[in-house]
């Protein structure tokens, strides 16, 4: 057993048990997270079925280029995250900080692009409550607003998760730079990676639901 007693909490028998406990804890937490987004996906689905035409029309006005670029940015960050876990696991600790910093930077890039996109949405009068043209949308502007509200809530909740993730990854990068991780003790990187991949996967669902729903019209 590659015991590293300084990292072993008193209530665990060995490092292996501690590692497995931490990763299981994150998996269980992700189940909860899936239910948070599940509630939003449900609301989206119900209104999409009820108001299919308006959802498609509103969706077509979202900026699919920004959405597409952001997908590439976020999936790249998943690659660097996976590399960080792999290098930590196989003892190449020197490479871990760079991979983690790159992950956090890509996550930040996503948020910056998203910010520009929100600004564009505002200028295009796609922001109910702040900038919205009631007369541009036919007989049911409230249904279009419903789509937009759900769009902002879903991407907003996703962005909050991303901000938390960037914070976590930054802390991990700092720990990695200080040489805290070894082959026997790298579960914080793995646990952080699980969270990061989850946030990415959510985006993979958001892209078609929000941006591609109206492309064919």
């Amino acid at each position: 057993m590659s015991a590293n007693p300084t990292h072993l909490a008193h209530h665990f028998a060995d490092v292996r048990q501690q590692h497995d406990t931490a990763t299981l804890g994150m998996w269980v937490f992700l189940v909860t997270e899936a239910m948070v987004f599940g509630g939003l996906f449900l609301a989206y689905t119900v209104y999409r079925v009820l108001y299919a035409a308006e959802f498609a029309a509103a969706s077509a006005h979202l900026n699919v280029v920004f959405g597409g670029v952001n997908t590439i940015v976020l999936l790249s960050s998943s690659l660097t995250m996976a590399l960080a876990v792999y290098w930590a696991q196989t003892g190449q600790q020197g490479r871990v900080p760079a991979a983690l910093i790159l992950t956090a930077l890509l996550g930040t890039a996503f948020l910056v692009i998203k910010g520009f996109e929100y600004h564009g949405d505002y200028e295009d009068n796609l922001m109910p409550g702040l900038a919205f043209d009631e007369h541009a949308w036919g007989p049911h502007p409230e249904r279009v607003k419903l789509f937009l509200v759900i769009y902002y809530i879903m991407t907003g909740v996703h962005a909050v998760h991303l901000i938390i993730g960037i914070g976590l990854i930054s802390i991990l990068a700092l720990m990695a730079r200080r040489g805290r991780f070894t082959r026997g003790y790298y579960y914080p990187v793995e646990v952080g990676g699980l969270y990061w991949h989850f946030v990415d996967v959510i985006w993979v669902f958001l892209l078609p639901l929000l941006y591609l729903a109206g492309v064919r019209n």
Partner: protein
Amino acid sequence: MSTVAVATPQGESPPVTRPVNYLNVHFGVRSWLLTTDHKRIAILYLISITLMFFLGGAAITVVRLQLLTPDNNLVDADTYNKLFTMHGIIMVFFFMVPSIPAVLGNFLLPMMLGAKDLAFPKLNLLSWYIYILGGTFTLWAVLSGGVDSGWTFYTPYSSKASHTNIIPAAVGVFIVGFSSILTGLNFIVTTHMMRAPGQTWFRLPLMVWSLYATSIIFLLGTPVLAITLTLVAIERIFQVGVFDPALGGDPVLFQHMFWFYSHPAVYIMVLPAMGVVSEVVPCFSRKNIYGYKFIAFSSLGIAVLGFLVWSHHMFVAGISVYEAFLFSFLSFMVAVPSAIKVFNWTATLYKGSVAFATPMLFAFGFIGLFTIGGLTGMFLASLGTDVHVHDTYFVIAHFHFIMVGGAVMAYMGGLHFWWPKMTGRMYPEFWSRLAAMIIFVGFILTFLPQFVVGNLGMPRRYYQYAPEFQVLNVMSSAGASILAVGYVLPLVYLLWSLGYGKKAGANPWLATGLEWQTASPPPPDNFAVTPVVTEAPYQYSKEVAVVS
């Protein structure tokens, strides 16, 4: 696999006469507020939820006084709405949901598994702070003007019409949800990863199965409530449509999402209670539990089926008739695992040496009242009958039989059963039996008339009522005052017992669980030596007479 960890208390000099336990290992407020010991966190929860229980009780006391006469004006109508809302929010989210899991479960789960602590001790402490933060928000909301939406926050009333403190109350409930999630996460991971050598799944006490099933509901249900309340808050703050029909939204969608959590929440309350009863009944009948695996799997069955019945709250809300059929059927189905448990407890009593000790009295109270509560639930699950009794006092009586007659009874029973373990002291047997009887009588007198008055047509939440309902309402209010005595009494004698109770010793009930194989109060790491489990739980022998 795991090595035997010996954790004898060390560092103290030999003249120490008292054994080190979790209570005397450190002193001072700081040692409590920064503790990561699951036993101390359980005590923190116990103090907090007791405070909440009496606050929620105070609110309903005024409600029962208001309902003494048909056209009473003790409080005005708006205050009345705020009082029953305060009662509901506090009792559901801040007392019932955390009661058995966060107090007894926190204290017992690691000990029942033979572990030193929960898997994530810091998260456990964090969950208590989150509870306190959420409680502060909610208390501030109810005290600085109140909330009048009822504990259900139905839209569009909550998001549009109400002029009361909806947002802070919803934020408080949102926050406290994360305390439940962390507790559930901790319990599930602990049960998987922290079991002592030999502690296989089918050697686990049934309390652990119950807490595990409860944790599944915590994890799957609570986040949906959180996001639902977020949507209500967004609708209210930004005046945009999510559930408001005038803005294209669907208020029934809110009800679906709300009850997706809040119906399973009933099982969050009653599953741990069933776990307590499953521990108490074998101990005081000196018999192995009847049908261990049936009880264990029926807990999981309730957790799963409990997620598939929520629409029975909306039979009159305009849902499709086929949906109503389906949910009516599924609601009947959830009675099956509950009935299995009741039959198995009864069968356990058969030919046992039954002792009417206080925990057992509470357990009997649970079985009887839960059965009535469950069977009247069948009335409500029947589509035709539900139209008649929907939104009447019949519903109030039904769920109070489950939550108060069931879950609070079991919580009191569990508190008495494990009080000697938690404090090292016995409670006074006479006073505690008296309290159990008073609570039982007071409960019956409070809630049995409500079935009748509901069936006669008195709607719930009404401020004033038709004169012919007065006799039944007076009975109910009289019962509530007896119930109040029954709840204050344990507060007094349990506090008294801390100083003056008889020393309990490690195992006053001669019970079989791992938690009884260590000192009372337990040492900080629970066991001097990590136990090795070699047999199934509940290996009671009849020969040993139980103390009374």
